C-alpha cells in the first residue's frame, strides 16, 4: 500500500478517454466509493467508505489547506490576530504516530468551485501531504473537471502543475526515510481525554514554526532522544513506570522535561513563567501551574520554555508559510519543505539556521536555483525569495 498514489475518479467521467490525463503522472491508483464503469488497466482501485477504511491505510478526513478567505462567514483570525490557517499537519503527524508504517491518506474534497481556490493551487494539498509523509487522495472540484472537459488552458496548466508536484516527490524517495529535525518531542497517547489537547498541539505548533517529533508513550523506552532538548508529556497525569524512568533520565542527562503535576513531589528550585522548575541531574523538570486546557497557550508556553534560540528553522516574511525540516541519517543534508497557505505568491522569504549550511537548492513548482548563504546574527541565512504553494530548500553542510 505504501507506493500507491491515489486519484478520486470524477463521477462525471463515464468513459476511459480521460485516463490519458494520468499518463506522465505517478498516479497508480484510483480511489472512491465505486470503481469507474470501464476497465482501468493496471490502475489499482481502493474502495473508500466512511465506516470501513481499507486495510493497511490510515485514512483521515483532512481540510483544504489554506488561509480562510475573508468573504467566508467564519473565523478569519487565530488567537493572535494572525490569519487563520487550515492545515493538515497535525492530522498527518498524529495519524503517522498512531499507525507507524501505514500510509496516511487524506480524503477531503476541495471547497466548492464558487468560493474555492484557484485551480493552480491544487498542487498545494499534494505537496503538503507529501512533504509530511502522507498522500492526498487527489479530488477535483466541478470547476476543475469542467475545465479539463472543455480543454481550458487554465485547467490543463493546473493539472500539469499538480502532476509536477507529484513527480517532484516521487523523484526523491530518500526523503521518506529522513528524520524530522526538532528540538522538541511530544509524547502522548493522542487518545481519550488528552486527544484534543495533544492533537491541537501538533496542529498549532507549526504556526509558530515550532518543530516537533511525536512519540507514543509505549515507544518512549525504545526511542533515542539524543537530538531533542525538551520533551513535553501531554497526558492528564504524569508518566509512570518505564516511561517515567526514561523521561526523567532524559532530564537528568541535561534535557528539559515538561510534565503534568505529580511527577516530582519535592519543592521547586525556581519558578519561570509560573512553571515550577525542579533540578534533575544536569537538566530540569518543569511542571505547569495548572492542568493544561488551552492548546494555544500551551504551545506558546512550551515554545518559550524551550526558547526561540533552538528554533530549527527561522522563517521571515512567511506569516502564512509552514515549514518542516528533515535531515538525512548522516546529518550532512537536510530539506526544508515550505508550504504556503495564503493566496498568491509569498513575500520574499528568508530562512535562517544555526547549522552552518554552505549551499541551498531552492526548488519551486516553476523553477530551481542554487543559493549561497549570507551571515546572519544567529547563523546562516538564505534568501529563498517568493514562491506560490510550495518550495523545497535542500541544504548541504
Amino acid at each position, binding site marked *: 500500500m505504501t507506493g500507491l498514489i491515489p486519484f478520486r475518479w470524477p463521477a462525471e467521467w463515464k468513459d476511459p478517454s480521460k485516463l490519458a490525463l494520468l499518463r506522465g503522472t505517478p498516479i497508480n491508483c484510483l480511489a472512491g466509493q465505486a470503481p469507474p464503469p470501464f476497465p482501468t488497466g493496471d490502475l489499482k482501485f481502493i474502495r473508500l467508505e466512511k465506516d470501513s477504511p481499507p486495510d493497511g491505510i490510515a485514512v483521515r478526513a483532512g481540510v483544504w489547506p489554506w488561509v480562510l478567505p475573508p468573504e467566508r462567514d467564519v473565523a478569519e483570525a487565530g*488567537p*493572535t*490576530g494572525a490569519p487563520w490557517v487550515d492545515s493538515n499537519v497535525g492530522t498527518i503527524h498524529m495519524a503517522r504516530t498512531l499507525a507507524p508504517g501505514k500510509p496516511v491518506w487524506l480524503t477531503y474534497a476541495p471547497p466548492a468551485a464558487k468560493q474555492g481556490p484557484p485551480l493552480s493551487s491544487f498542487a498545494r494539498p499534494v505537496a503538503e501531504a507529501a512533504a509530511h509523509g502522507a498522500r492526498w487522495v487527489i479530488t477535483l472540484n466541478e470547476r476543475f473537471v469542467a475545465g479539463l472537459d472543455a480543454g481550458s488552458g487554465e485547467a490543463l496548466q493546473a493539472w500539469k502543475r499538480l502532476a509536477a508536484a507529484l513527480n517532484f516527490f516521487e523523484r526523491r524517495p530518500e526523503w521518506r526515510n529522513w528524520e524530522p529535525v526538532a528540538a522538541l518531542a511530544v509524547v502522548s497517547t493522542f487518545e481519550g481525554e488528552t486527544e484534543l489537547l495533544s492533537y491541537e498541539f501538533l496542529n498549532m505548533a507549526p504556526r509558530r514554526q515550532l518543530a516537533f517529533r511525536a512519540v507514543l508513550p509505549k515507544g518512549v523506552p525504545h526511542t533515542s532522544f539524543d537530538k531533542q532538548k525538551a520533551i513535553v508529556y501531554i497526558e492528564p497525569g504524569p508518566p509512570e513506570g518505564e516511561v517515567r524512568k526514561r523521561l526523567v533520565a532524559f532530564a537528568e542527562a541535561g534535557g528539559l522535561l515538561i510534565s503534568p503535576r505529580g511527577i516530582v513531589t519535592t519543592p521547586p528550585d525556581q519558578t519561570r513563567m509560573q512553571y515550577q522548575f525542579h533540578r534533575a541531574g544536569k537538566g530540569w523538570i518543569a511542571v505547569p501551574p495548572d492542568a493544561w486546557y488551552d492548546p494555544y*497557550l500551551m504551545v*506558546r508556553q512550551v515554545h*518559550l520554555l524551550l*526558547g*526561540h*534560540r533552538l*528554533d530549527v528553522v*527561522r*522563517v*521571515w*516574511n*512567511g*506569516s502564512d508559510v509552514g515549514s518542516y525540516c528533515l535531515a538525512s541519517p548522516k546529518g550532512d543534508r537536510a530539506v526544508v519543505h515550505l508550504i504556503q497557505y495564503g493566496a498568491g505568491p509569498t*513575500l*520574499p522569504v*528568508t530562512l*535562517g539556521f544555526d547549522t552552518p549550511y554552505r549551499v541551498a537548492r531552492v526548488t519551486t513548482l516553476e523553477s530551481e536555483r542554487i543559493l549561497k548563504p549570507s551571515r*546572519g*546574527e*544567529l547563523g546562516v*541565512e538564505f*534568501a529563498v525569495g517568493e514562491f506560490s504553494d510550495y518550495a523545497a530548500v535542500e541544504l548541504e553542510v
Partner: protein
Amino acid sequence: MPWSRREWLAAAAAGALTRKARAASAATVAVGRCSSYGPAVVPVMATMFGQLGGIAGLVSGKTVAIKINMSSPLRERTGFRPAWFTRWTHPDVIGAAIRLFHKAGARRIRILESSTEDAHPLEENFLIGGCDPNALLKLAPSVEMENTSGLGSGHDYSRLEVPGGGLIYPGFDVNHSYAKCDVMVSMAKLLESPAAGLSLSMENMLGIAPVTIYGDAAGYESPSDEPYGERTAIFATGKRQPPHTSPAEKNPDSPREPGYRLPRIVVDILKARPVHLAIIDGVESQTGTRERGVRPVKPGVLIAGLNPVATDAVAAAIMGFDPMAARGKPPFENCDSTLQLAEEAGLGPRDPGKIKVLGLPVAKARFPFR
C-alpha cells in the same frame, strides 16, 4: 565587553562621559555622520553626547529606561533586509548607548518595548527578529530587557497622570518600567508614519501604552491577561474606551479621526512620561510607508538631543520635510502636526531658528525621504 582604545579616546575627547548635561542645551541637537553600523557607532554617539554637554549628569547612578522601536510584525522584513536595518532601532545603536551609559555611571539599564503580538520576554522577540539579545545583555553588568506590552515582571500597572489634564487622555496606565526609572530615553528609527506623519522619538513613545489596556483585544472591565492587537480601536479611531480601571478619555465627543487623535495622544504621553534623551537611528532606514510602498535607504546619520520635540524637528528637516508644516503639508497630509501640538503644549521648540544643531549641519545631513 571591554572598550577599544579608539572608543575610549573618542568618548573622552568628546567629553561624553565626564561633563554634566547643561540646562541650556535643551534645544541643542547633535547630528553625526555614521555611514554604517558596527564599531563606528560608539565614537559617533560619544561625540554627539559630548556636544549635548555630556551624559554623566543625566545617567550617573540612575536607572535608565531605553524605549526602543521594535514594532510588529516581528517576523517581517523589507524584502530580504532585516527589520533592524529598516524599521527597528539597530542593536549596534542600542549597544553603543548601553556602553556609553554604563561608562557614564548608569546603575541599571533597561531595554523596553511592547509587542502587539505576544507577551514573550523581549529577549525572545530579539531572537525572533534574528538578533542575539545576549550581545546586548553582556555589554554591562546591569542590562535588562522587558516586554512592556502587559504587566511584564511587575505586579501592578503604574498610573502616569498628564499634567494639566491632557488633550485626549488625562492619564495612562503603563508597565511599571516606565514609572520606576530615573531617565527616559526614546530611541527611535528615522521613519515616516502613515498615521502620525513621522515615526521618530515622540511617536516612538506611543509604544509605552500596554497592549493589554490599549490594544484591540484589551479587556473592558480590566486589562486583558494576554496582549495582542494594534492600538487602533482605543487610540487611533476611538471606537472604544480603555478598560474601566484605566483613565477614560476626556471628551468622547471629540473627533474619532486617527489624524486628529494620534498626534494628541503622543503629546499626552510625552507630558505624562517626559523623555530626557532622544536618539534617532538614521544610519539605515526605509522611505515610504507600508501603504505607499517602502524602499530600504542609508541616510547615514545619527541624531540625538535632550528635547524630543527639537530632536524630531531636526530629524524631519534632515528627511526633507518642513518642521513648521501644518496639516495638509508633507509629512502631515493625513494628520495634525505632532511637532506643532508638542510645541504648543510647551514640550519644546520645532522652529529650526530656535534649535542649535551641533556636529553635522542639517544641509549636509539632508536625505530627502520623498
